[in-house]
C-alpha cells in the first residue's frame, strides 16, 4: 500500500509535467520518460533473479530500495513546474469532466487496455513455467517483454506527433490484439513463439502507458492536464485491480490451462480498439483522415 500510494504520487506528476514543457512533441517526450518504467521492468526482475540466490530476497529488495532512492532524488531535483496554476484551480477531484463523450470513451478504451495489460505482465512468468520452460527462461520472459516495451514507449510517441496521437494509438492496439490472438494463442508454447510474443506485445502495449496520456491531453487545456489524466487513470485503476484476479479466476476455473486467459486478454484489446476508434471519430467530427 505504501508503495502503491508512493507510486501514485510519483506517477501522475511525472506524466503531467511533460505537458508543461511540450505540446507539439509531447508524445515523443512522454514516450522517452515512460521508457523509465520499462527499464525498471528490465532491471528489477534481474536484480531479484541474480541477487536473491547468492544472498537473500531481503538484500535484493534493499538494493531496489537504494536504486529508487537515488532515482527519486534526481526526480525531486529536476521536476520543476513551468506553467502557473489557475487561481481558481481546485485541489479536489471532480467527475463532471466525464460528461464529455470523447473523454469518457477514451477512458473506457484505456480501461479495457489496462484491464488486459497487467494480465500478461503478471502471468507470463507463471505461464512459461507451466509450459515447461526452465526457471531461468521463465524469469527472462518478463525482461524481454520490457525490452520490447522500451521501444514501444518512445517510438509510437514519435510517430504519434507526426501522424496523430489517436491514429497511432489505434494502430498499436490492433498490433497488440494481433500479437495476442495470432502469436500467443497458437505459438506461445514454443520458445520462438513466446519470445516473439513477448517482444511484440511489449512493443505494441507500451503505448498504452505512454500514448494514452497524450491522447487525453488533446482533450483538455494544459493547466488541467493533471486532473484529466489522473481522473482517467483512477477509473482505469479499477481495471487494474480486477483484471489480474479475474484472470486468476479464469485460470483456476480452466484448471491451469491458459487458453481462456489469453482469449480474455485478446477480447479486452478488441473492446479497447472499438472504444478508442469511436472516441477518435467523435473528437474529429467523424473525419477519418485527419491527423488526431
Amino acid at each position, binding site marked *: 500500500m505504501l508503495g502503491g500510494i*508512493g507510486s501514485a504520487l510519483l506517477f501522475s506528476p511525472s506524466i503531467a509535467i511533460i505537458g*508543461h514543457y511540450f*505540446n507539439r512533441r509531447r508524445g515523443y517526450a512522454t514516450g522517452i520518460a*515512460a521508457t*523509465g518504467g520499462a527499464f525498471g521492468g528490465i532491471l528489477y526482475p534481474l536484480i531479484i533473479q541474480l541477487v536473491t540466490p547468492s544472498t537473500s530476497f531481503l538484500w535484493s529488495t534493499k538494493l531496489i530500495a537504494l536504486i*529508487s532512492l537515488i*532515482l527519486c532524488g534526481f526526480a525531486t531535483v529536476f521536476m520543476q513546474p513551468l506553467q502557473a496554476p489557475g487561481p*481558481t484551480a481546485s485541489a479536489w477531484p471532480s467527475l463532471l469532466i466525464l460528461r464529455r463523450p470523447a473523454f469518457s470513451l477514451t477512458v473506457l478504451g484505456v480501461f479495457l487496455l489496462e484491464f488486459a495489460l497487467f494480465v500478461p505482465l503478471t502471468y507470463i512468468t507463471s505461464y512459461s513455467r507451466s509450459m515447461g520452460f526452465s526457471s531461468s527462461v521463465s524469469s527472462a520472459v*518478463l525482461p524481454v517483454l520490457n525490452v520490447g516495451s522500451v521501444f514501444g514507449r518512445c517510438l509510437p510517441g514519435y510517430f504519434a506527433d507526426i501522424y496523430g496521437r489517436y491514429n497511432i494509438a489505434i494502430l498499436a492496439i490492433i498490433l497488440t490484439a494481433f500479437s495476442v490472438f495470432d502469436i500467443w494463442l497458437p505459438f506461445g508454447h514454443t520458445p520462438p513463439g513466446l519470445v516473439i510474443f513477448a517482444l511484440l506485445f511489449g512493443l505494441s502495449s507500451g503505448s498504452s502507458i505512454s500514448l494514452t496520456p497524450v491522447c487525453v491531453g488533446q482533450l483538455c487545456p494544459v493547466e488541467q492536464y493533471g486532473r*484529466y489524466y489522473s481522473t482517467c487513470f483512477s477509473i482505469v485503476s479499477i481495471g487494474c485491480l480486477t483484471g489480474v484476479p479475474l484472470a486468476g479466476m479464469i485460470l483456476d476455473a480452466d484448471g491451469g490451462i491458459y487458453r481462456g486467459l489469453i482469449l480474455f486478454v485478446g477480447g479486452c484489446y478488441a473492446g479497447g480498439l472499438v472504444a478508442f476508434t469511436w472516441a477518435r471519430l467523435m473528437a474529429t467530427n467523424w473525419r477519418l483522415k485527419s491527423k488526431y
Partner: protein
Amino acid sequence: MRKSRDYCWHIRVDHKGNFEQEKERAFVAHIQNEVSVLTLSHSLLIQHQNINTFSLLASMPYVAPLPPVSHSNRFSLAQFELPPLQDPRDAWELAFPSGTPYGGSYFSTSDSESRNLIDKPFDEGVVFPEGGRRAWLVVFGSWCALFSSLGLMNTMGAFQAYISTHQLKHLDVAVVGWIFSLYAFLTFGAGLFVGPLFDKYGPKWLVLSGSVLVVLSMDLIGNCVGQYPFPGFDISLPNLYFF
C-alpha cells in the same frame, strides 16, 4: 457602461507575432474610452476607441493587466507576465470587479453552457518550450520517477512468482493476484487526488513524499517476506497488504 451581445473580430496572435482574424459572437462591454470584449472562445479583447484595430489582450486562460494599447496588431504574447484563469467568468470578474457598477455575473448563458466553455481545450497563448536543456532535464526527472514507480509495477510479475512459490505457497493464485493488483490499483487510483493537487501546487511535495514512500515500501517488503523476519513481524497477509 453599455453591455451588448455583438459580433467582433477575434484576433489570434501567436508568440511569433503572426495573427489571424475571424468574426465571432461576443459579449461586448464599453467602459470609458475602452471597449472590452469577452468572446466565446475565452479571449478578452481590448479596443481603444481611437484605434480601429482590436489587439488581443490575452486569450483564456490568461488575462493580463492592461498593456499599453498597441497601434499595431503585431506583438508577442510572451511579453506579459500573465496570471492564468480557468473560468471565463473569472476573466469577466477581473475586467469588471464585483462592487463596481459593471460587476457581478454577466454571463447570460446557462451554467452548463459556461461549463462547456471551461472544458474547451484552449492552449493558444501558452508557450511551450518544446525542447532545450531545462525541458529535457524535466523529461529525465520524469524518467527517474517512472523508473521507480512504473518499473516496480512492471516487476510485480517477478515478485508474485517469487512470493507465491515461497512465502505464500499455501494461498490460491487469485488471492496472491489480489495483493499485487492492489499495488497497481493504488498507483493509478490515488492519482484521482494527485492530479488536481499537481495542477494546483506543482510536483515538488508530491514527488518528495512519493519518493519516501516508494523507498520505504521496498525497504519494508524485504522485512515482510525476507528470510529473517523481525520478531513479531511474521509472514502474513496483513504485512503484504502494508507493502
